[in-house]
């Protein structure tokens, strides 16, 4: 991939913002990213963006200005942000454009998602019987994983504890109150073995990036960050996926494994070179599974790594330094770009109280979700 730089980042705080629409939160994220880059909306040549429940991204021009730019709506499940970033990078790498914006935003109703089976290629009975809940999938995936790899409930508690501790250091996070081990371990079961404080909640927020070609980037900043890989992969036959009425006889690797492996190959970077990591933590178990699926450790090794504090901000492989989905909630359209935003802050050394020490140079982001897809990015100074 020819060089694509991130020269501006913007975030609308996550959580609940009753007085603003999802689109307004998305527009605010774009304004902040433009200001960060020192670029005006009039200069932006293209945009990609999307949301699940908050309408078309293209409608943001009503707030930002109708400049005639190429604006493409992206909706790709939980990889909406990752897919928008992939498309934006391709638009620049192709040589067609030199300056663009990618944006994700959302505003979900309270409570668990309630997808319509037909939208996902499934029949009504699957939803009617009460089988079509993402929470059940994540619970059954970690339940099986704990059985196969010796992960304990203690590890699930540690991940949640870290998330809220990191969230407390993040002024943009939704949940900024640390929770004790006991509060997490004794919170009500939602879907065994996962408890209330081990699950993220659908929420609201917006995130945006300004992308530029190398030549254009140097006009605006002396310290661009480089997108070394942006990869989206969908499930192969046999992987254990959300919304599956049945699983194949032979289980194969998840799309996360494919996306991460491809990203590392393309970037020519190994997992051991990554200094700061963002992983999809829909629940505590997901973060644990994704540590291994992304290639950062062996299956089962997480128990020890968590006990040692390896994934803490000061540890040797910091994970979800901004509190992840657990502390930020999950506005589906915005979540993937929120991860990139955090990595950029960390690589710039601007993460404040949650700054990873030692001047991190390489960052990694990962989303996983419905309908069984994953988006991975590698970013470096």
């Amino acid at each position, binding site marked *: 991939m020819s060089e694509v730089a991130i020269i501006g980042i913007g975030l609308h705080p996550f959580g609940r913002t009753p007085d603003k629409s999802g689109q307004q939160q998305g527009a605010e994220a774009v304004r902040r990213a433009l200001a960060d880059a020192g670029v005006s909306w009039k200069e932006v040549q293209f945009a990609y963006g999307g949301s699940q429940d908050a309408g078309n991204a293209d409608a943001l021009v009503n707030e930002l200005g109708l400049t005639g730019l190429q604006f493409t709506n992206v909706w790709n499940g939980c990889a909406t942000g990752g897919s928008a970033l992939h498309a934006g990078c391709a638009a620049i790498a192709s040589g067609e454009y030199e300056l663009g914006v990618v944006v994700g935003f959302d505003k979900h109703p309270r409570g668990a998602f309630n997808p*319509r089976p037909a939208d996902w290629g499934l029949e009504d009975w699957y939803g009617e019987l009460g089988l079509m809940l993402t929470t059940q999938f994540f619970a059954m995936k970690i339940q*099986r994983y704990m059985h196969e790899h010796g992960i304990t409930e203690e590890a699930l508690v540690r991940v949640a504890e870290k998330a809220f501790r990191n969230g407390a250091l993040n002024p943009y996070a939704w949940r900024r109150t640390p929770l004790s081990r006991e509060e997490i371990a004794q919170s009500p079961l939602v879907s*065994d073995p996962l408890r209330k404080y081990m699950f993220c909640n659908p929420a609201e927020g917006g995130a945006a990036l300004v992308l530029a070609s190398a030549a254009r980037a140097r006009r605006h900043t002396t310290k661009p960050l480089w997108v070394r890989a942006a990869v989206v992969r969908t499930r192969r036959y*046999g992987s254990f996926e959300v919304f599956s009425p*049945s699983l*194949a*006889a032979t289980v194969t690797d998840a799309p996360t494994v494919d996306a991460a492996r491809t990203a590392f190959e393309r970037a020519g970077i190994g997992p051991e070179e990554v200094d700061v990591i963002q992983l999809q933590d829909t629940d505590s178990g997901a973060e644990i599974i994704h540590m291994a699926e992304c290639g950062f450790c062996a299956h089962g090794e997480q128990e020890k790594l968590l006990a040692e504090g390896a994934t803490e901000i000061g540890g040797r492989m910091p994970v979800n330094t901004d509190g992840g989905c657990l502390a930020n909630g999950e506005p589906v359209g915005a979540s993937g770009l929120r991860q990139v935003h955090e990595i950029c802050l960390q690589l710039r050394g601007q993460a404040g109280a949650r700054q990873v020490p030692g001047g991190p140079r390489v960052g990694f982001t990962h989303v996983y979700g419905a309908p069984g897809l994953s988006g991975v990015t590698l970013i470096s100074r």
Partner: protein
Amino acid sequence: MRPIREGLFTWPAERPELLGSRCTDCGEVTFPAQADCRRCGGRDCRVEPIGHRGTLWSWTVQRFLPKPPYASGETEETFRPYGVGYVELPSGVKVEARLTENRPERLVIGMPMRLVVAPFRTDPESGEVILGFYFAPEEDEEEAA
């Protein structure tokens, strides 16, 4: 009484079995039955019974009342948490189903399970009983017998 959907399990039957499909090209079995094979792309899949016994592969308990499209007729007041699991059948395919058991201490990965067809809800207009499919721990049958 009628099944929630025709073609998910043999019915009426003394010993109902799940109905899946087998690809005539690659032999892969899937549930529910579908016309095309997701493994090899073959277009010729045959519907066949895929069994009524298996082992519990993974499980959870659904502890809050799901929003629609969940359609059991339950309310916040009447909702009872229900078990959900994947049960591995003899072909190796793992079928997702509700479990008759919702007590976590009675659910263990690897335990033998059997298919049960039982009332799921009553149609509020016609009064007709709608049947769903469930898996029950095998031992429950032994206890009953």
